[in-house]
């Protein structure tokens, strides 16, 4: 139980996927313009990361390790993520059109999100057992969501702020991301596995 709690804390705050590891910077900057889309993207990421880790962990442990093919992990994991996203999209469209509409464009976008591949690779590389892997995936994606939502909140306010022309647009976004990342440095060393 203690390990699970520390995994949750570490991967949300200390070792935040976006702000400390710099995974998934593309959606972090791309869809953080509005709070609404940021939350939509966050939900989709939490869902896909957890599902992907579940499948890849099983595949890695029971197929790749069994046949001594660990070196194929990156290729197979990409294959898993791409097919999984496609599958989830097809299934959602049938059984829950509302959720499908809500996640909308974000679902296919996640296929190319490196944070998803990172979470599956790290789960096996850190040799987490099954339950820990799932908790790790949830914590990592919640950490991603936290960063995204904070960023969206700041950017919505920046929209209204008056600033010099040179800073407008991507410039101020990147500076904000940097400062946010430095702020999260404050969690460093608080807890480790």
């Amino acid at each position, binding site marked *: 139980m203690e390990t699970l709690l520390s995994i949750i804390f570490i991967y949300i705050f200390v070792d935040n996927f976006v702000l400390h590891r710099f995974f998934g910077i593309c959606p972090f900057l791309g869809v953080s313009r509005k709070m609404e889309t940021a939350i939509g993207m966050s939900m989709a990421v939490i869902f896909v990361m957890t599902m992907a880790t579940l499948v890849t962990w099983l595949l890695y442990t029971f197929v*790749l390790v069994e046949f001594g093919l660990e070196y194929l992990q990156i290729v197979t994991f990409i294959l898993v993520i791409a097919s999984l996203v496609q599958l989830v999209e097809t299934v959602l469209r049938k059984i829950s059109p509302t959720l499908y509409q809500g996640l909308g464009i974000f679902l296919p976008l996640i296929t190319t999100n490196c944070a998803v591949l990172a979470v599956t690779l790290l789960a096996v590389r850190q040799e987490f057992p099954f339950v820990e892997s799932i908790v790790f995936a949830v914590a990592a994606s919640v950490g991603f969501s936290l960063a995204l939502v904070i960023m969206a909140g700041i950017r919505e306010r920046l929209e209204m702020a008056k600033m010099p022309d040179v800073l407008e647009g991507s410039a101020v976004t990147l500076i904000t991301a940097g400062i946010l990342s430095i702020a999260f440095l404050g969690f460093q060393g608080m807890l480790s596995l």
Partner: protein
Amino acid sequence: MLIIYAILALGLIGLLFGLGLAVAAKVFYVETDPRVDAVKEAVPGANCGACGYAGCVKFAEAVVHGEAEPGDCIPAGEEEIQEMARILGIEVSSSASPVATVFCIGDIYRAADNFVYDGVQDCKVAGEMNGGHKTCTYGCLGLGNCVRVCPFDAIRMGTHGLPVVDEEKCTGCELCAKECPRDIIKMLPPGDNGHLVLCTSQDRGKTVSKACEVGCIACRACVKVCPQEAIEMDGKLAVIDLDKCDDCGKCVEKCPPNTIYQRRSIPTEADAEAAAVEKEKEEATA
């Protein structure tokens, strides 16, 4: 040997996933009406929401189900409406869309300011601050909310501090008219005919002339001169009925502050600047 295992394993896994997806696509197949996609392709696709539906997809569904008319898509031009009708196999009457018109000519040269506004560049915010920086509490604040809200790039902010509408691009979606906190932008029926009183001020004549050189001072000169009786007073503002106006232009000559213009000759940026230069010269010689 190793490479064969790798190829085999990866191939098998790929094949398995592929089959899985194929089965899933069959099992979870959702029937969609191909006409919905066709209609969605036909509309301009700005997701402006002027039709009252949440986006173009919803509108396309409503049109296919007979809940909406193709003409309800306000930005759609004649061609697009006919295209939708063709897809659905129905007849529609043609209708041209209204045009957004700015009812304020109090540019930065001729309308006075109470103070220099340096806050958030947004008309709604500026208007809440001491009644806005412009002395006239009805006039255009010139911070471009209408420009930002236009999905068709049909409005730009002129150098004279008033929005300029590109009638070619305007589709009549009314988003700018709804956005403007002072209701200066009004939708006019398409066409060239008619004169307009380009002011919305309900202030007394004395207040108006202090605030703006070209505001309607409610002198009634135009009401008296109009042979068609097309001009009436709405409170302290003269309003011309476009249906009755026959473009004789007598009101233009009579109007003391020059507030009345023919629809095709609304002052442009160049006119405003020229007038400002003229005024400067006059002041210099005086």
